[in-house]
């Protein structure tokens, strides 16, 4: 509940007296301030639960079996329990980014001071659209970014508290909390990445960022090798600085796995990306890394054990992942280095400058002592001989790979099936753990892995305001058929380069394609017949037919930010504390679709859920059914009534666009068809709708063999029918008894649910 003092506090934080835009209805919204928006969204896109576990084991009343209509000892039912777990997952995801942001902002404030200005270059004036839209603050300094994180942290406490026994008991209210904290995940990511960009002088206001080498084969193992793992570049940039200071940048290889790799290449284009998260264990076990510097998130928790097995040493550098190690920031550097080199000891060093110095000194001494020998096919064949084909490996594989027969074939000298398994491997190592014969399965992979060098474009940060001005109109009118954002982890269902195939399909069709995180890496791991990767084939602008690497996980905020900027820069809607209006605009008028094909983490859950609150639908791969919850409509039965903002009257559009908000598909073929469909919006012009339907029909016919069953739902008038399919579609519509439907130029949810926002707020 907001009182006078609370209001005054908010006004002080957001500097209400600054008149850059009028303040909207929800400055720094509390948990329930956007509850009605959520309930309106979820009235159309109802939560769909697929319980991953029938039980609740969170308190000592239980375990309680919640199957069917059973309730727990506290009274909770299976739906509320699923929503509760989803809320917790989103809190974990958001807190990982907020924790990252808090650390990096404080670290940079120590370096540069609280008043260090936020300057994203001459092409980015709307510097933090998420912070502007949610808080109502136009951040000017690193200190302002810290204010955003303090607000997010306070909200996190409220939402985590709601998951305690005997608190929230309604699934939709839990979902509203998950949506709230996930919206704040995008605020946190934005604060983190903008701080990094200004603090480390990462690329900004430029599209054509450098292209860097990628792959384990790109790492020169004849040099000392430092591997950085995780997501936070504070320590890895210190390593680069130290190497530069000592004139060693060409003498030591710095390579990375996961987002720290992406961040480090934003700082030095001499750094190399080994690959996504799914290659972490594989690369560790090659022993190529001499020194491993870990920071935070998605690092294997057995990192030190794995490093010890191959004679590498670890420096943990984050308070979030201390790994039981001795903290040695205050001990003399040479003493620490000696223990690492002579005894293989791992240490925690929270002082990043010190950690960098230790890493470089240790790698220079350790590397000459180590042998880095990889196995070849002959050795792999020999090692595979002990396989008894017992299937134990297969039974524990989260990606359901046919490992047993593949390893048996390796023993016979046939490597093809095992190579295919490696391409689909998510890198957990459970197979090897389960093997009663101790077959070193990950070692065998060295014989089938490609040792090619691939290419990745360096992440470029925010989409530029000038780019938004150029594409805003065609996107909203539909003549650019959509923005497709490929995000998230590498828990892919099939071959790792399947994503590149999907990405190229949409780039070729002149969608705007953006990528972040592990997804941004893996599309560089496929070459065409001429040896070119997608980053070398397609332009890097935010424009039709281009492929943009936005950056790391925290750069995801620039994707939602771009959608907000379309509402702001193209449609002139004020962002300031105006979340409902902006989300309503994005949902109903911006043809954007997220794709998290290999989502694994809690962060991926909150990133996707944050997109959903903003009205961006997300297509997920099959593993994501284990997140337990989706947001689905039932296209034929549901009510698709919206307000016509111009006529100010309710209109039953009968059109399910976008059809779902969070949706799982099993195959790449279905994913492609679904992505094309999810870019359809009610405000498409007939010309825009023709283009979108042309892609939907063409993909559907090619991949599913026929016209879509639901095509009549997306044709409003004859003018929507693509020229190329005119005759065929007309006949099909006639057979299905199709009738024309209303066409709206200003569809909105505002006015269809209780809100303080007047209908006039959506009209500019």
């Amino acid at each position, binding site marked *: 509940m907001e009182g006078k003092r609370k209001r005054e506090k908010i006004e002080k934080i957001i500097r209400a007296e600054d008149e850059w835009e009028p303040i909207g209805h929800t400055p720094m919204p509390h948990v329930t301030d956007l509850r009605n928006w959520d309930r309106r969204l979820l009235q159309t896109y109802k939560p769909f639960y697929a319980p991953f576990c029938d039980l609740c084991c969170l308190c000592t009343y239980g375990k309680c*079996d919640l*199957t069917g209509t059973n309730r727990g000892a506290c009274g909770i039912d299976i739906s509320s329990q699923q929503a509760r777990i989803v809320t917790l997952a989103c809190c974990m995801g958001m807190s990982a980014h907020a924790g990252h942001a808090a650390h990096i902002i404080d670290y940079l404030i120590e370096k540069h001071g609280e008043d260090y200005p936020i300057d994203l270059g001459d092409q980015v004036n709307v510097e933090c659209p998420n912070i502007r839209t949610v808080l109502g603050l136009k951040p000017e300094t690193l200190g302002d970014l810290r204010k955003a994180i303090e607000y997010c942290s306070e909200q996190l406490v409220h939402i985590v508290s709601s998951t305690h026994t005997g608190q929230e008991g309604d699934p939709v209210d839990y979902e509203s909390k998950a949506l709230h904290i996930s919206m704040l995940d995008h605020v946190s990511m934005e604060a983190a990445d903008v701080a990094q960009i200004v603090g480390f002088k990462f690329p900004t206001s430029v599209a054509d960022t450098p292209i860097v080498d990628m792959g384990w084969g790109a790492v020169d193992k004849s040099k000392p090798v430092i591997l950085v793992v995780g997501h936070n570049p504070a320590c890895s940039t210190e390593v680069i600085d130290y190497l530069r200071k000592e004139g060693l940048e060409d003498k030591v290889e710095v390579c990375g796995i996961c987002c720290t790799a992406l961040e480090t290449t934003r700082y030095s284009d001499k750094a190399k990306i080994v690959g996504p998260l799914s290659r972490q264990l594989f690369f560790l076990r090659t022993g190529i890394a001499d020194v491993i510097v870990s920071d935070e998130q998605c690092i294997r928790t057995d990192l030190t054990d794995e490093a010890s097995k191959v004679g590498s040493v670890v420096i943990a550098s984050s308070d979030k992942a201390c790994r039981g190690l001795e903290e040695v920031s205050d001990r003399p550097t040479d003493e620490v280095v000696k223990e690492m080199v002579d005894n293989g000891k791992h240490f925690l060093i929270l002082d990043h400058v010190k950690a960098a110095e230790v890493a470089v000194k240790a790698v220079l001494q350790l590397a000459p002592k180590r042998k880095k020998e990889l196995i070849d096919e002959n050795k792999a064949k020999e090692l595979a001989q002990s396989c008894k084909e017992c299937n134990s490996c297969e039974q524990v594989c989260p990606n*359901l790979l046919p490992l047993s027969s593949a390893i048996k074939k390796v023993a016979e000298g046939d490597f093809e099936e095992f190579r295919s398994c490696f391409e689909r491997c998510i890198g957990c190592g459970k197979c090897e753990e389960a093997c009663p014969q101790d077959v070193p399965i990950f070692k065998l992979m060295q014989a089938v892995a490609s040792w090619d060098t691939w290419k990745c474009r360096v992440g470029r940060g925010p989409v530029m305001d000038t780019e938004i001005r150029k594409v805003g109109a065609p996107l909203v009118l539909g003549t650019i058929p959509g923005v497709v954002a490929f995000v998230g982890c590498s828990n892919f269902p099939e071959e790792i380069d399947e994503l590149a195939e999907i990405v190229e399909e949409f780039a070729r069709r002149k969608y705007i394609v953006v990528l972040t995180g592990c997804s941004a890496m893996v599309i560089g791991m496929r070459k065409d017949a001429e040896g070119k990767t997608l980053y070398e084939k397609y332009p890097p602008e935010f424009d039709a037919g281009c492929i943009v690497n936005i950056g790391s996980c925290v750069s995801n905020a620039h994707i939602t930010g771009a959608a907000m900027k379309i509402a702001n820069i193209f449609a002139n809607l004020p962002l300031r504390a105006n979340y409902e209006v902006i989300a309503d605009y994005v949902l109903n008028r911006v043809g954007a679709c997220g794709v998290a094909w290999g989502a694994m983490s809690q962060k991926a859950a909150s990133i996707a859920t944050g997109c959903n609150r903003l009205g961006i639908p997300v297509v997920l791969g099959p*593993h994501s*059914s284990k997140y337990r919850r989706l947001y*689905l409509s039932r296209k034929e039965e549901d009510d698709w009534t919206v307000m016509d903002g111009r006529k100010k009257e309710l209109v039953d559009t009968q059109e399910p666009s976008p059809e779902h908000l969070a949706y799982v598909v*099993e195959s790449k073929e279905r994913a492609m068809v679904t992505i094309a469909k999810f870019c359809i919006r009610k405000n498409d012009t007939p010309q825009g709708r023709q283009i979108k339907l042309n892609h939907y029909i063409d993909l559907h016919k090619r991949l599913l*063999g026929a016209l879509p069953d639901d095509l009549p739902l997306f044709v409003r008038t004859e003018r929507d029918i693509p020229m190329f399919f005119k005759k065929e579609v007309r006949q099909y519509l006639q057979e299905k008894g199709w009738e024309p439907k209303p066409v709206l130029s200003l569809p909105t949810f505002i006015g269809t649910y209780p809100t303080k926002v007047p209908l006039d707020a959506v009209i500019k």
Partner: protein
Amino acid sequence: MAHPYHLVNILTGTKGAAEMKDAKPLAKIITKSARPLLVVGPRTLSFQLNEKLLIEYVIEIAKVGNIPICATAHTNKKFLELGVTPDTTYDVIEITNHLKDPEWKGVRGEGNHDLVVFVGFRTDLGNQALSTLKHYAPHLNTMTLCKFYYPNATFSLPNFRKDEEWKALLEGIIEGLK
């Protein structure tokens, strides 16, 4: 499914699929159902039993049992190539969402289905969809025809180590439905 006396100690839930090793009772369950539905996943296109794809067994089951087909993922294309037009192309999550509504009219508009037979899915995704139906669709039973045990189904095949056993069971079902 055996349970500990004090159910508070259970590990994964109390309701698990009946393991069905013989074709006859499975065929009988299908025959006795008023409105069965086959929900077909993309692994029917890659599972090969001798010279035939799993989807070909599914088509035979559909034909002899007069069972409507829901072709999920990209299976529709193969059905059409094999001369079969599926009744619907809802994807697995969509059809599951419809099935949990007892008032839904079913793929032929005759009322919701009382038996849903899943075949050809990734086991993880299939089991999640079956979990939804186990919890939210008490009005129907589910059956799986893959060679893996699906705990969230009502009736499931066991984990077959040998494909010959699986093939024999599928052929037995086809025979039983004639």
